[in-house]
C-alpha cells in the first residue's frame, strides 16, 4: 500500500487527478487499446473530477480511448433524477470531456431484471479486459461502494438493500423525505474491485478517520470492507491530514517520509 498524505481536500483531488492522468498517458491508449477506469460518485471525488476536466481543457489528456465503469447506482429512481449516479457522472464529468457514451458503463437501476443487469456488468468488465485502475472512496463505516458492513469480501456485482443509516443520510438529497429515498442499489462487489490491476482510494475529512484506521491498521474484516485491499498488490490511499487523525503517529511519519518518492508519480511526464 502507498499512503499519500496531503494537507487538504483540494490537494487530494489534485494529486489523484495527476496520478490518473499520468497512468493514462503512460499506458498510451489507442483505438485497439483502451484504458479501463473504475469510477466512484459522491463528494470525495468531485475535486478530482474537476481537476481532470481542467487537464482535458488544457490539452494534457484525452478520454477518447478510455472506458469507464462506475461502482454503483440506485434502484428505482428515474435515470435523469438529479440524485441518480447517471446524473452525477454526466453533470460532473462526462459532459465536460471527450469521452464517448458507448465507452461509459453505469449500472441500470431500472433494468427489468436486476440480477441479470449485475451479471451482465461483470461480463462487460471481463470483455473489456478487466479494470486497469479502480478509483473509489470510503464510507464512515468503512464500506467501499455499497458494500456495507457484513458484505462478503468475495462478493461480486449485485443488488444491495441500503442500511437505515445510509437512507437517513441520503434523505437530505430527496427533499428531506425518507420515503423518497431509494432503498436498494446495485453495486460492484468487493472482489470485483479487488480484480482491478490497481486500486486508488480517496479519503478526506475527520469523519472518515476511524474508517481509515480500521482499513489499514487493523485486520482484514468484513465489517470494514475497505480492509480487503490490504491483500491487493497495488493499492494507493490518498488522504488529507484530517483523515489521519486516528492513525498511529508512526504510520503517518513513515508515509510522510516517503512523499518525496511518491510525488514523482505525479510529476508532469516528458512529452514523448
Amino acid at each position, binding site marked *: 500500500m502507498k499512503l499519500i498524505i496531503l494537507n487538504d481536500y483540494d490537494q487530494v483531488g489534485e494529486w489523484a487527478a495527476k496520478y490518473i492522468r499520468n497512468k493514462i498517458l503512460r499506458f498510451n491508449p489507442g483505438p485497439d487499446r483502451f484504458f479501463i477506469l473504475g469510477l466512484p460518485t459522491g463528494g470525495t471525488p468531485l475535486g478530482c473530477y474537476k481537476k481532470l476536466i481542467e487537464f482535458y481543457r488544457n490539452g494534457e489528456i484525452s478520454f477518447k480511448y478510455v472506458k469507464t465503469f462506475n461502482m454503483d447506482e440506485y434502484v428505482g429512481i428515474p*435515470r*435523469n433524477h438529479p440524485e441518480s449516479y*447517471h*446524473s452525477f457522472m*454526466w*453533470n460532473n464529468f*462526462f*459532459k465536460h470531456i471527450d469521452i*464517448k*457514451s*458507448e465507452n461509459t458503463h453505469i449500472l441500470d437501476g431500472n433494468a427489468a431484471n436486476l440480477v441479470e443487469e449485475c451479471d451482465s456488468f461483470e461480463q462487460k468488465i471481463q470483455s473489456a479486459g478487466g479494470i486497469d485502475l479502480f478509483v473509489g472512496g470510503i464510507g464512515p463505516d468503512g464500506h467501499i461502494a455499497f458494500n456495507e458492513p457484513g458484505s462478503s469480501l468475495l462478493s461480486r456485482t449485485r443488488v444491495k438493500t441500503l442500511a437505515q443509516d445510509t437512507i437517513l443520510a441520503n434523505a437530505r438529497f430527496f427533499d428531506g423525505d425518507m420515503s423518497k429515498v431509494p432503498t436498494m442499489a446495485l453495486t460492484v462487489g468487493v472482489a470485483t474491485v479487488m480484480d482491478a490491476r490497481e486500486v486508488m482510494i480517496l479519503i478526506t475529512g475527520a469523519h472518515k478517520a476511524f474508517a481509515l484506521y480500521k482499513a489499514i491498521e487493523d485486520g482484514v474484516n468484513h465489517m470494514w470492507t475497505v480492509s480487503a485491499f490490504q491483500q491487493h498488490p497495488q493499492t494507493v490511499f490518498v488522504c488529507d491530514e484530517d483523515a489521519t487523525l486516528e492513525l498511529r503517529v508512526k504510520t503517518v511519519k513513515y508515509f510522510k517520509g516517503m512523499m518525496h518518492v511518491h510525488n514523482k508519480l505525479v510529476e508532469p511526464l516528458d512529452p514523448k
Partner: protein
Amino acid sequence: MPSNKYVSDSTIIQFVNCKILREHKLQRDDLWVREGKILDPEKLFFDEKRSADQRVDCKGLIIAPGFIDVQINGGYGIDFSQATNDVRGGVALVAKKILEHGVTSFLPTLVTSPPNIYHKVLPEVKVHSGGMEGAGVLGFHLEGPFISLEKKGAHPEQYLRSFLSDGISDLIETYGTLDNVAMVTLAPELANSHTVVRELTGRGITVSLGHSVANLSQAEEAVQCGASFITHLFNAMLPFHHRDPGIVGLLTSDQVPHGRTVFYGMIADGIHTNPAALRIAHRAHPSGLVLVTDAIGAMGLPPGRHTLGQQVIEIQGLHAYVAGTKTLCGSIATMDMCVRHFKQASGCSVEEALEAASLHPAQLLGISHAKGMLDYGGDADFVLLDDALNVRATYIAGQEVWRK
C-alpha cells in the same frame, strides 16, 4: 461564428462557451439543438449515445430566449392598421427587420379601425412560425374598438364601439373573424363585457384591459371572467388613486383567482413612462411585467420628417412628434432598447430584464412550454447578446436568421 449552411434536419448543434438563461439564472452551460428544438444532452448521451455534429463557439455571449413583442403597430414605414394592397408583405417586412432587435415572435397590433379594415387585414395573415424570412406571427392583437371614449388616446373616435347585443355578435360583425387573433384589448366597464371576456378567454384569446376608465372592482371582475393582461400600464387609464387604484390596482389585488397572474405591458422607452413609475410597478409585481414596444410605423426610420398615412411625423432621437409640435405620436423604441432601458431604470438583474421580454410574454400567451424558455423540448428560438445586452445574433428553430 460560422455562417449558417444548409444542414440536415437531425444535425445536432452544440453551442459552447456561452451563458444561458435557464431557471431564472445565467449559467455557464452548453445549449444543444436538434430539429428546431432544444435538446437534452444527457438523454442524448445515455440513450442515443450520440454527440454533437456541429459546435458553435459563442465566445462568452449570453444566450436568452427570443423576445416576444405582444404590442407592435408597425415599423419601417409600415402601419398594420392600414389596408394596403400588400398587408402580408408589410407584416413580413416588419417581421424580418425586428429580428435585429432580438424579437423572434410577435403580435401585429391593430388600433381602433372601421370594420372594413379588419375584414380586409385579418384574413391576410395567419399564425405562422418564424424563420429566415422573419419573426413568427403568434396572431393579431386587436387594440379596440371596444374601448372607452374618455381614454381613446390617439385612436379615432368615430370608430369606437360598444357591445350592443350579446357581445359575440358585435365581435364577429366588427372583426369579421376571430381566427388568428391572439389578444383583444377592451374596456371592461362597457356593458356586456363579462360575456365577451368569458367567450374570448374560452376561445384561447388573451383579454387585455386598456383604454378604460374602469375602477378597481370592474377591473377585478373582468380578471375573474378571464382577463389576464393590462395594455400599456398607466397610459390610457385612470391614474392610481389611493382610494380607488383603478386598473393599476390589479398589480396588488387580492381578488385575482388563485394560481393566475395578471400581466401588464410596459413601454420602457424612457419616454412613455417615468422611470419612477416603472420602478413602482416593477417592485409591486415583478413577475407580471411584460416589455412591449407599442412601436408605430415610424420605428426604424431615420431621423427627420416622414409622411405616414395621413400624418407627418418628425423623428428626433427616440422621440416621434407630430411634425412641428412637441406632441408625441407613439413609441419608436425597439425591443432590445426597451430591455436595456428597463434594466438600467429599474436596477433589476440581467435575468429579470431578459425574462420581461421573453418568459413573461410567453406565460401571458400560455405558450411557455414551447417559447420564452430554453428548456428541453422547447422551440430553439433564441438570441445571443453581449453583456451590455446588445443583440449580436438571432436564431429561430435553431437556425441563425440574423447576425450583426
